[in-house]
């Protein structure tokens, strides 16, 4: 579904992503692991059209994606829940969700999708006319995911959805991600919580300073010594 080939992305003269390649098959959950500065968020931003490639190619559903402006990328079916959630804090829950559906014009369907989000996260439904900034971290993460779902994406990219959340809240979010996959959404997940991410993922890629070091199935990576040492804190 998504194929990234030898992608190089730079901020000014500094290459943040130094020629990575990976693929996401339809219906899979794929995770990118790595420490801070490994280039995970940069990769997501490049896919969603917020950053330009220096070289390399991105293909989505058999068509060339790189060079497409961000708002077109959303229309093609790729949604992103950005790092740090980046909600519109002064807008209500409802308006945040409406913005998530900005690329769509089918009002009735938007309405029913909104109800679906409220079903999934009842706390959002009961406080739908409150500004997003008043919500707790976990609730904001729910809203960020809900907002990204509102564009009815084929591919949903989540950037550290568990950041700053309690273990229980993390579990809830991870369960939601699995539910989304069951609904047929393909997911590209960026995480620092390798344990949680790998137990979900069909496939994982490990990034270090802008390069992919190795990749394998989620299950194999969970048992991999190198992963254990660096990301799972085992000795």
């Amino acid at each position, binding site marked *: 579904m998504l194929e990234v080939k030898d992608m190089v992305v730079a901020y000014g003269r500094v290459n943040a992503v130094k020629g990575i390649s990976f693929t996401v098959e339809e219906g899979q959950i794929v995770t990118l692991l790595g420490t801070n500065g490994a280039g995970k968020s940069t990769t997501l931003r490049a896919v*969603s059209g*917020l950053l330009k490639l220096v070289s390399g190619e991105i293909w989505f559903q058999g068509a060339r994606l790189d060079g497409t*402006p*961000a*708002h077109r*990328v*959303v*229309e093609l079916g790729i949604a*992103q829940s*950005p790092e740090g959630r*980046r*909600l*519109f*804090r*002064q*807008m209500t829950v409802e*308006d945040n969700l*409406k*913005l*998530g559906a*900005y*690329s769509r014009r089918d009002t009735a369907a938007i309405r029913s999708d909104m109800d679906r989000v409220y079903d999934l996260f009842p706390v959002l439904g009961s406080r739908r006319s409150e*500004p997003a*900034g*008043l919500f707790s971290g976990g609730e904001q993460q729910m809203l960020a995911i809900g*907002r990204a779902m509102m*564009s009815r994406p084929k591919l949903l990219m989540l950037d550290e959805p568990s950041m700053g959340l309690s273990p229980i809240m993390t579990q809830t979010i991870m369960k939601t991600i699995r539910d989304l996959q069951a609904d047929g959404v393909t997911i590209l997940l960026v995480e620092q919580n390798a344990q949680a991410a790998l137990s979900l993922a069909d496939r994982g890629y490990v990034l270090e300073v802008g390069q992919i070091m190795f990749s394998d199935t989620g299950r194999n990576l969970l048992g991999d010594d190198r992963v254990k040492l660096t990301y799972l804190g085992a000795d």
Partner: protein
Amino acid sequence: MRVIISDETKVRFRYPARAVGIVGAVLMIVSIFLPWSYGSGALDDVGFYGAPSPLQFAFVVLPVLILLLLAIPLVGKQRLGQWAKTVAWNTSAKTASLATLATVLIGLAAIAIELKGLVNIDVGGFTALVGALLAAVATPFLPDSPEPTLARVKSPTWLQILGIVLMMAGVLFAAAFALNQTDAGAFLTFVAFLVGVVLVLRQLGVMAWIGIAGANNNRVLVLAAFATAFAFPFTQNGSDANMSIASQVLIFAAAALGLNIVVGLVGLLDLGYIAFLGAGAFTAAILSESAFSTLDFHPPFIVVVLISGTVASLLGLLIGAPTLRVSGDYLAIVTLAFGEIFRITMNNLDGNDGPNLTNGSNGIPGIPDLEFLGFNFGDAHVIFGVDIGRFANYYWLMLLVIALIIVVFMNLNYSRIGRGWVAIREDELAAEAMGVNTFALKLLAFAGGAFLAGVAGAVKAHHDVSVTPDQYVFLESAFLLAAVVLGGMGTVVGVLIGATILKLLPEKLRFFSDYRLLLFGLLMVVMMQFRPEGIVADERRQMEFHDEDEELAEEIEEELISHHAHLNPERRGFDL
């Protein structure tokens, strides 16, 4: 600076405080029948026995209010019943007393300055001062009232509508009264009085009640507001002096509303906005029948308006397309420079270098009045026995333009485009990630705002009779921006109020003109310190300035509860 008086002291002194306060209020009421000044050249002639001036008649409202607020609770809690808690008797009396003292002090200072010396203050002035001091010293010793619950009292629709109508009538009266004060001291005293009345009404809970009444009867409120604005020329008896100011205020307000889209909704800082007003004005002047017009093409005004707006928005696109891709600070610098380039270009298009379009610094004088469907805007006429002059015609035209702008603005604000704009203001990157075409939307706002300014400029050209480049200096851009910020970014009512203040005060306080900028600077600093969201706060914006402000969160919650209780027939949860 807050003097803290302990609760025990307040309980101990509550009776003497009330008595002294009442004496003070009575003294002030008596004082209007005594001369405030020797001689009659001060304020609006306050030097007579037994014949209060209009200003004194208006002033007496505050002492009478104090008297009522202090005296009525004397009938006892039992007989007051629920009203004991519905109205904030004591706290309102305190606010009213302090406001009255401020008003008296300004009035006396005006007398002393205008008649040159404190000796010109007569017995009435001193009586008022003593009364105001007594009330202002005594009322803080009264126990604090609980928060007023007036807003939560259920009221029938007819009463709510009556309240709205009365408020609008009050606004109309106050506006006409303030504008008719030719004396600067009298104007200032009246403004102080008005601010006092508004503060007292707020304290009483009347403002909150009106707010809910307005929310429940939205259409009535809007209609009443426009009827009030429409009725204003009838209060002026054909006098052009005030109508000229009023029509200028509306032209300024229309431009400010355009800027409000760019700055208030989308968050783009435009420091050269006056250039768009100028572009509209010059276009209309060049296409007008003026003998100094440089083009031999004079279409009817309705076409001219569209051309003026289009020229302005094309300029907006021209300046926006290359700069809107960069972030805020660069845009501010580029627009600032653009404003200057516009003015200098208009100055130089005099035929010496390049074509003669604007006659250089002489500009285009002698622009004839508008002709519209056979109606000449320069003609005075009589409606309902009241003379309606030239400026009143322009005033009504601008009122119509502003009404259209407001309709467009409101529809945009709650539309898909409006949501996209606000999203860009809040977090441009996130908006882009959501699929908002940020560049196109910013460009649209820029061109749309410029179009509105161009339309306002086209009317301005005919209104002002002549158009010259030096009317469109950077300072005017700054004032437009100040009107938006002062009034409340992103709101319509706020920007209208801000525009009125910024245009009206300089006209009324001409003796102050040397210090005008100093005064505005101070005003802005004070506003930014104490109420950064502006006079009227945008509901979506308030959080920006008071993020994680517990008090505000509580306030919002309370407001929701009170609103809810108001809609709910059963009152509950607030009986103390």
